[in-house]
């Protein structure tokens, strides 16, 4: 009796308040997304290197502000797709178009390697990310605030060589964020990190994506990471999109929850179809 009495108001409050917070956040994100995220449409995209056809006709629409994970076996063409979106390779056939006119600073890539300039201090490395606005008077202030965002403002005067792997990757993230990109492409950004650093980096990535509302495209070989971070998972096989899966699991997602595990299991099953090794799944 007593328990029930106590339970109800507490329950009501627990539902009400986060709902309110979530709504406010969603509202903000919607407003931001209108301003920030870019939608992306790909039609009939093909890419060959010599005789080797890596992408064989990709059709894809990504709405503004969505976070999409691209998974697939190594050599399936997922990194090539990302490099094409980022403009790092030339298209063999097909089109990639963004919702609106883009500046060079609107699309940023983060690689598996941090690719920091070893001869520049952390702050100047972040300033590199400003692109053509590098020389503007507020460049340093903007680089500083990007460092605050990734929690490394105390390392601004350090050389990259003294940072740990995770810290270097956070500086690379700050460099990618500093120009306020509207599309951010991640090419296995956490691939070289240890398990614990990975988890904290995943949380950081999710947080900045929620705060800034850019369209995120994440290439990863880690299906667990894909379902934990993305709204939508694309499975690429033989240069085509084999599966397009919406991840309708509310955020914040609890690591190791049954829902995530089930989804991860079914995607893995898809990935491994056709190989002999499906018996133990």
């Amino acid at each position, binding site marked *: 009796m007593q328990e029930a009495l106590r339970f109800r108001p507490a329950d009501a409050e627990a539902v009400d308040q986060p709902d309110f917070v979530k709504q406010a956040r969603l509202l903000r994100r919607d407003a931001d997304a209108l301003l920030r995220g870019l939608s992306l449409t790909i039609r009939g995209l093909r890419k060959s290197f010599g005789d080797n056809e890596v992408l064989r006709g990709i059709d894809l629409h990504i709405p503004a502000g969505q976070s999409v994970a691209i998974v697939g076996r190594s050599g399936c063409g997922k990194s090539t797709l990302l490099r094409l979106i*980022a403009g*790092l390779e030339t298209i063999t056939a097909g089109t990639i178009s963004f919702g609106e006119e883009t500046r*060079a*600073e609107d699309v*940023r*890539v983060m*690689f598996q*390697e941090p*690719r920091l*300039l*070893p*001869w*520049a201090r952390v702050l100047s490395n972040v300033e*590199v*990310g400003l*692109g*053509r606005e590098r020389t503007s008077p507020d460049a340093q202030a903007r680089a500083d605030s990007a460092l605050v965002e990734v929690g490394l403002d105390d390392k601004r005067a350090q*050389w*990259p*060589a*003294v940072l740990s792997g995770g810290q270097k990757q956070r500086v690379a993230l700050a*460099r990618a964020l500093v120009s306020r990109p509207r599309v951010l492409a991640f090419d296995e950004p956490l691939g070289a990190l240890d398990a614990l650093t990975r988890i904290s980096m995943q949380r950081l990535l999710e947080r900045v994506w929620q705060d800034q509302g850019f369209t995120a495209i994440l290439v990863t070989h880690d299906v667990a990471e894909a379902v934990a971070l993305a709204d939508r998972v694309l499975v690429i096989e033989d240069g085509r999109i084999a599966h397009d899966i919406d991840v309708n699991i509310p955020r914040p997602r609890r690591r190791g929850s049954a829902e995530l595990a089930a989804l991860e299991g079914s995607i893995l099953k898809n990935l491994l179809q056709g190989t002999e090794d499906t018996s133990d799944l």
Partner: protein
Amino acid sequence: MSLIESLPRVRRLRLPRADGLIPWIVPLAIILIWQVACVTGFVSARVLPAPSDVALAGWKLLLSGELVRNIWVSFWCASVGFLIGGSIGFAFGLANGLSQLSSKLTDTTLQMVRNIPHLALIPLVILWFGIDESAKLFLVALGVFFPIYLNTLHGIRTVDPQLIEMGRIYGMTDGELFRRVIFPGALPSIFVGLRFALGIMWLTLIVAETIAASSGLGYMAMQAREFMLIDVVVLSILIYALLGKLADSASRALERLTLSWHPAFQKH
């Protein structure tokens, strides 16, 4: 109490000074043993004069102004020859590292010329320039050209392509890319070339001054040999050693200054 307090202070004071002195212990010991060997008659003065005699000869030459004049001539030839050959080598290294066309046009030729030992040109150089400073300048410039050229080229070609791609993605212009990525990336290799070149610079100068010169330290040594002034010969050899050490220290200091980002140069 006072002893405990004073201990760390004493150690802090003594250590850096001792660190600076350690490299000089061996040279000083050699000079000391050498002096003792000469004074006791273990080594004949005709074979090797005592360090004190060498110092005395140096003092006399210093008073007559001959020593300063010859050191100045050698130093001038070394630095001007180094600057000329080094700048041309650096320019070719940059051009061939950055431009395919330039590399195709000149690299093969330069690689062929590189295989000729530059000192083999001495007879020709004497015929062309006679035996004054220009002959020495030419040989030094030719000698330092190749290490600077090769290492600059190598440095630029081995700059991490991922960093170059990163620079391009972030919208760097060609000039910026060179200034912020390619040149700093090539710098460690350029310094390797610089130190090789300094070694070759002294070697070339000594040989050239000994064979084809009318002034300079090598010439002074050859003149002294004719008059059996063995102390002057030893003196000029020692001065060469000091000048070489000086050039090396200067390049190290420059390296420390410009490569402070490099893990090898970080003290903490």
